[in-house]
């Protein structure tokens, strides 16, 4: 095999792992919300955008460090997510999961246009020091990419610890597993649902910020990755937390290889193809316990 082909593959693999780690955060948010509230919340893309703008305001306008921006992204996206749920989506719950899913699409449009109204259509960039790419053997990687990757991994580790080790995390998993029994044991399902929405939307906000740090911010930032996020969650098994991570890495890598082998315009097709393939071959996804 010619060396430059191998090099191209390695580079695509590396890029895919990094972009997969960024996709993983909103995919986790989406899957966590699905696991507990039992509906696909398609506002996750717009929530990611909202988080990214919050981080940008804190960093570029207020001049605070990017770390503070990431924290602001989590909080603002969590708050907006809870507001959407409590003010609008919850009421649609009686109409069933499909009603809530459609409602979330509508909320996404409202939120996206509110952001457009507030910040305009222009690309916005974070205030970052210029840094040179580094060579890792045959492949190159930017310091910002490394940072983003590490932040994403740290957030995933924190989420794992929260779910596995805290009483609240235990109650969330209990509601996801068996909501009726959880109620019998004294869990307040609405409280757990809203906390899950807050955590899930917060993850989306952080993911959106990392994507914005990787490229730039505009009102469609989250909308552009929504399909990939949804595909990652479906591939991993809707509602499965490890599945969302695995699915995100697979989608991230598959997209990079598609760009390499075909052309960037086929990137979007990956999500569609994966969703179709999963729904046809294995609707429960890679790690899902129940058929979606």
């Amino acid at each position, binding site marked *: 095999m010619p060396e430059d082909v191998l090099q191209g593959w390695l580079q695509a693999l590396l890029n895919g792992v990094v972009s997969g780690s960024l996709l993983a955060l909103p995919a986790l948010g989406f899957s966590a919300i699905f696991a507990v509230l039992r509906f696909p919340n398609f506002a996750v893309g717009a929530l990611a955008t909202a988080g990214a703008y919050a981080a940008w305001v804190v960093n570029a306008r207020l001049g605070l460090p990017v770390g503070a921006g990431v924290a602001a992204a989590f909080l603002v996206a969590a708050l907006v997510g809870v507001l959407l749920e409590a003010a609008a989506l919850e009421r649609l719950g009686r109409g069933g999961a499909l009603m809530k899913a459609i409602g979330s699409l509508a909320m996404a449009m409202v939120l996206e246009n509110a952001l457009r109204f507030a910040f305009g259509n222009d690309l916005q960039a974070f205030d970052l020091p210029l840094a040179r790419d580094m060579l890792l053997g045959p492949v190159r990687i930017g310091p910002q990419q490394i940072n983003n990757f590490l932040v994403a991994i740290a957030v995933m580790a924190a989420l794992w610890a929260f779910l596995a080790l805290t009483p609240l995390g*235990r109650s969330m998993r209990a509601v996801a597993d068996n909501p009726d*029994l959880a109620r*019998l*044991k004294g869990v307040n399902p609405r409280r757990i649902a809203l906390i899950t929405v807050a955590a899930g939307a917060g993850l989306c906000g952080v993911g959106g910020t990392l994507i914005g740090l990787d490229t730039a911010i505009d009102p469609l930032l989250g909308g552009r990755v929504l399909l990939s996020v949804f595909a990652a969650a479906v591939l991993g098994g809707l509602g499965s937390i490890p599945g969302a991570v695995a699915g995100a890495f697979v989608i991230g890598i598959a997209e990079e290889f598609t760009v390499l082998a075909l052309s960037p315009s086929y990137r979007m097709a990956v999500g569609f193809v994966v969703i179709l393939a999963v729904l046809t071959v294995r609707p429960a996804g890679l790690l899902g316990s129940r058929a979606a």
Partner: protein
Amino acid sequence: MTGAAPLLQAEGIVGGYASAEQVVKGVALSAAAGELVSVIGPNGAGKSTALKLVAGLLRPSAGRVRLGGEDVAGRSPQAIARAGLGFVPQERNIFGALSVAENLEMGCLFERGAMRARAAEAYARFPMLVEKRRAAARSLSGGQRQVLAVAMALMARPRALLLDEPTAGLSPRAASELFALVRGIADAGIAVLMVEQNALESLAVSDRAYVLVDGRNHLDGPAAAVADDPDIRRLFLGGRTHPAPAAAPVPFQQPGGFP
């Protein structure tokens, strides 16, 4: 029983599901502290639905549910559990995705401070759970699951306990062990209402029994009297002490019946 009202007393409860609003059409059930009461009846009679109405998983459209003198009918399942009612449903009565230890912890949310001590007691009482404590509850056998479900309910120190077919699907030996466990729970002073399809064995360990048919009380009395009632024997118990009935006995629980 004379004097004070029984600890758990449901009267005239009516209710069902959105698609079938009147499954239970007026049922009375009661159990005194320390009393083990069987609830038997044909498949589809509304036994499970009646327990869900008592526990608050379904909202009764009429009737009263008294627990230690308080009327808890219409309250949320959390509130009724907090008032001292434990409920082990017929199906999905454990958190399969959680570890055995976490299942026990979920049983003690009202008194988190007592969690460790009560878990230690549960492990001492059910040593089988100790070796499985880190395992996902879904990996347990059928009998182990029922024991875990009961142990989880006991973690909350309920005053009254509802059990829905705790021996369904168990081997005869595991079923006998479970009946002995339930008898012990009642003897410790808890009021126990147990829906069962193993009617003979259930009646043998019970103090009293109710027979529900088509969403209504059909008969009740001391367990021994119910077990000896010729009608009941013919209908539900296969008529063992009497000549074989002309018609086939009504199957007590058909496989694949509605949950």
